[in-house]
């Protein structure tokens, strides 16, 4: 049905072009371009804020803060314990996920090491097996030594370490982005 106007136009074009029909053709082209350009402009007008809104987290780096995870004496020398602390970017409705867990190793009297709980293989939560003295991953059986190095299995590298310091008798961990291998 909508073929007909086109056919008529096609026929007209084959005739020796009169000034009038050439003008009409120019008009048609102009209106076509104008409409497409306007629609493109409108799409950008709506689209840019939406895309910007969606990709914003990529450009916003959360401030990194030192978080207290406990007094130095809460941890035994040579032991590894789970600690948790608040993310810096935690939103009011984040609930439990506003927290991050880490494994804290009191290596020496004043020396602590903090490991990310994410396996370097695919990010599953590694657990510390205190009797066996290994970190083990439940997903594909990755194993790490106490110093965070890979002991066995598929992990491509050791456990990610978080910066940790002792300040006024308190152990503090620096909040960090989730480690992506």
């Amino acid at each position, binding site marked *: 049905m909508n073929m007909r106007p086109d056919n008529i136009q096609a026929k007209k074009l084959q005739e020796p072009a009169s000034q009038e029909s050439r003008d009409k053709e120019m008009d048609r082209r102009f209106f076509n371009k104008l409409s497409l350009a306007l629609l493109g402009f409108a799409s950008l007008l709506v689209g840019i804020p939406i895309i910007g809104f969606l990709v914003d987290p990529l450009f916003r780096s959360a401030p990194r803060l030192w978080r207290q995870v406990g007094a130095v004496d809460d941890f035994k020398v040579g032991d590894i314990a789970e600690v948790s602390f608040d993310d810096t970017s935690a939103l009011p409705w984040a*609930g439990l996920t506003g927290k991050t867990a880490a494994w804290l190793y009191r290596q020496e009297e004043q020396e602590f090491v903090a490991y990310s*709980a994410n396996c370097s293989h695919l990010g599953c939560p590694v*657990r510390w097996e205190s*009797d066996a003295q290994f970190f083990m991953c439940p997903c594909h059986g990755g194993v790490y030594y106490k110093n965070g190095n890979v002991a066995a299995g598929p992990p491509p590298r050791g456990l990610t370490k978080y910066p940790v310091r002792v300040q006024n008798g308190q152990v503090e961990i620096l909040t960090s982005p989730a480690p992506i*291998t």
Partner: protein
Amino acid sequence: MRILLQLWNWFDDRTGASAIWRATAGHLVPPNTGWAYVFGSATLVAFIVQVATGIALATIYVPSTASAYSTLQFISTQARWGHLLRGMHYFGASAMILLVGIHVTRTYLMAAYKYPREMSWLSGSVLLLLIVGMGFTGQLLRWDQVAFWSVYIAAEQAGRVPFIGKTIAHFILAGNTVGGTTLSRFFAFHVFFIPMLIFGFIGIHLYLVLRNGISEPPKKGHPVDPKTYRAWYEDMLKREGHPFWPNAAWRDVVFGVAVIVVLVALAWIVGAPHLSQPADPTILQAEPRPDWYLLWYFALLALTPPKLESYVMILAPLTFVLFLILPPLLANKGERSAWRRPWAIGLVITCWMMIGTLWIEGKRAPWSPDFSAESLPAHVVNATSGPIYEGAQLFHSKGCEYCHAISGYGGERGPDLTYVRDRLSADQITIRIVNGGVNMPAFGGTLTSSELRNLSTFLDSRTRTQKSQY
């Protein structure tokens, strides 16, 4: 009655409803389409169930990381019909995946992707990928421990993409870590964005059926020739075709209703999937597993040698997409009958067997340590004191049993050690414990020499000959 008729006539005149009905439901279809043709419409039926139950669930579900889990618990335990609706939504998702799998197998075996239906195949391929996307995003909305860690696993996999991996990973997380905006992002994709695309592509997919006609059941020796096919097809329809409704549609109705009945029955009897603990980054005792429809992929990644893994993570999905795109582009004419396309049969059998065996392996997950392994019972240890007994205790406490089984107790990640002494000498056993291996950590640094002696002595006693003594 007269008034009703007049009303209908008025409505029909102003809208053209009956003309649309005749042109769509009344379109001619080839004879003998049979039961093989019901799976596409059944997928659509399951999708409609998903939309309906999904809207109902969304009236209570709150997509915030703090509340999602408790609203789901409310739906499951307190809201009237809530448990049933969640079950229907879960089994509806399962049905969609299964039915779309059968549908794509059927159309591939019958080469329905050939001229002029290439776009039907390609639009269907997009739908297939979108459905898998729905399955994955939907599982995360449970926002339990499994869901929480699955987000990390997805981000880690995306992170393996060269150059832009980290960007994609952080886009998935909606930030630097899993947090407040992660769940609502998945919710928006699961509930608005992907369904919108599905609606659109279903529209295209169905429109193409009307435009090009449903493919006739293939016959050996009737190759498709793009030059003559359309004329032949129209001619065939004029001679032998019958209207889709009700001549062919009754089968779709029967099967579609059966699908719904089975869905409701499963939801009633089996119920919605169990919610594990709430998503909590500080609970590290989690064992993330995908739902059954992605379990085979989990197995594929687990069984891939770590060195090749990054390639598999990127190339396997790409290969899958390529397999979907290529058939209509490479072979859009010629024989359609599967009996003249032995490679097609081979490919289908290979794919289903691969997915099937990987699925079984994924269910067993022998590569995962068994953290629930209990210490060996006395009749297996065969000693109540002394080094063998002590060694058996160490075998459990030092985590050996997570990965090694003895007489059926323990994990399957490492070799079975029931008769290890028959394979290895006492020295070899000790050396292996101390040094470890590819998938076994070295225990040299964590065992005292007396512990090592006891453990070795215990393993030395694991032999067939000793058992046959009595």
